[in-house]
């Protein structure tokens, strides 16, 4: 791959950046800059997606990235990833238990009655996908009134902050495999070690947790449609705030330094012999990511299951192949490779043209000779 310097390119690049900035502010005197709180609140799904795909839970800077890149989720995640690369790592958390999540949504498609009950939370799952035309002309007063009115009617319900997991219930009934792994083993750090295959499952989970949603969905969809046989049932989909605990420097006591909004999904797949002369049990897949992104968590859980199968038996289709899946789902990698094709490739293309002309010339000569014979 070769590039050539472009004479006068600097001025054009500055012009392109200035033009981009003009487009961001094109509303002129009639417009107002997006404030970061508005982005975090009103574009919350996009905001969560950028934090997840950037691999950094930084609500303020994720909102800034969305503002700066005018809603381009790939570019915004790229900027967040670039930012994180400039910061030192101070520590890592102890292993956090997602059972302590402060839930705002929790559903199961496996059982209608789950311990603690099902709560739809904020979800469009059962709503019609019709445009709400009244929002075309939404007044600030009406907008503010909706939230105030919801807050006025809060029930004084004694709901617990966290609820037991459906999988724990199934495990107690002997329907699921027991934990087999060494609980003390250190997970693979994809931010510091390259993926050289075979990789452990912790590398696959970390890679998928910061993968691009559409890429994960596309490969998981291939498995759903027939290029695979996970046939998932959602044991539990949870959305909530996970308290982040770190040891207090003075006392050593684990204290809460903040919380992150995450989506977590556990799927139950086909049952199978678990080996060791054990009785058949269901197999499982797990997905989790920053923000409220159920499609990503579910797609990840399906791929976790298919990759576990592929790692054990060898891949029978693309979604079971760790190398195929894990090397093609990162948004920053794939976007970067894709967009590099827009950069000047004049030398390589010139070379292609030279070769084509030479080949054409040879072919023409050959045909002339064949005719003469």
């Amino acid at each position, binding site marked *: 791959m070769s590039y050539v310097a472009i004479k006068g390119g600097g001025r054009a690049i500055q012009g392109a950046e200035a033009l981009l900035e003009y487009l961001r502010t094109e509303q002129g005197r009639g417009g107002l800059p997006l404030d970061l709180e508005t982005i975090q609140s009103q574009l919350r799904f996009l905001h969560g997606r950028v934090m997840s795909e950037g691999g950094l839970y930084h609500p303020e800077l994720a909102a800034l990235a969305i503002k700066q890149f005018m809603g381009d989720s790939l570019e915004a995640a790229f900027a967040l990833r670039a930012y994180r690369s400039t*910061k030192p790592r101070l520590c890592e958390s102890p292993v956090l238990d997602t059972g302590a999540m402060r839930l705002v949504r929790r559903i199961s498609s496996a059982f209608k009655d789950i311990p603690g009950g099902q709560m739809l939370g904020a*979800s469009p799952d059962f709503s019609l996908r019709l445009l709400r035309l009244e929002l075309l002309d939404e007044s600030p007063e009406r907008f503010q009134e909706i939230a105030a009115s919801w807050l006025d009617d809060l029930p004084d319900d004694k709901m617990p902050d966290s609820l037991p997991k459906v999988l724990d219930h199934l495990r107690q009934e002997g329907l699921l495999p027991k934990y087999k*792994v060494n609980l003390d083993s250190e997970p693979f750090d994809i931010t510091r070690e390259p993926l050289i295959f075979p990789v452990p499952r912790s590398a696959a989970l970390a890679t998928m947790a*910061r993968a691009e949603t559409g890429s994960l969905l596309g490969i998981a969809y291939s498995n759903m449609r027939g290029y695979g046989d996970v046939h998932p049932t959602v044991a539990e989909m949870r959305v909530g705030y996970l308290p982040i605990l770190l040891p*207090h420097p*003075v006392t050593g006591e684990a204290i809460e330094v903040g919380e992150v909004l995450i989506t977590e999904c556990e799927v139950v797949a086909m049952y199978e012999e678990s080996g060791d002369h054990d009785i058949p049990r269901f197999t*499982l897949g797990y997905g989790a990511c920053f923000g409220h992104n159920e499609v990503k968590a579910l797609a990840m859980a399906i791929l*976790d299951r298919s990759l576990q199968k592929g790692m054990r038996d060898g891949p029978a289709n693309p979604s079971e192949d760790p190398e195929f899946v894990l090397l093609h789902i990162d948004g920053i990698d794939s976007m970067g490779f894709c967009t590099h094709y827009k950069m000047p490739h004049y030398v390589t293309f010139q070379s292609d043209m030279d070769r084509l002309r030479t080949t054409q010339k040879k072919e023409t000569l050959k045909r002339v000779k064949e005719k003469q014979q």
Partner: protein
Amino acid sequence: MSSADQTTEVTRGQWLRALSALEPEKLTAQVAALTEEWQITPRSLPQSGLAMLKIRESAGGESFYLGEIPLTTTWLEIRDPDGGQAQGAAQIMADNLDLARALALCDGILAGKLIGHEIVRALVRQGWQRCQAEEQKRRAMLATTRVDFSLLDDVGESDGN
């Protein structure tokens, strides 16, 4: 037990959470005013960077890295004008050394019952009430959307659930 009574029992492990619920600028200004003439020395270098989040997945029980969070840490030795001494520390999920310092000061003031600890305790109470309000809101999100997927035959035509 009233809400006010509950907040008086906020323990050291929860001070940071409670105080983090307040407006950072106001808190920083209040603590700066309170500790203006105090002798404050860093016990370790204040740092701003990242922390890796490690969670346990619930299918196989393996741990993995979910991603990173911003982290600022401060650890201070504090001496008030009356000679009272304490150590205070804070770790916060933000790139804000001033806020981390203010929270570490609050931690030390409360731990050592230094001058102004009543003021800081009042701030903790105020922050804790905000945390509780947020928790109540989240519980309401669950309570108002609780669903019963029983078959219609089981519940008649009622849409009460």
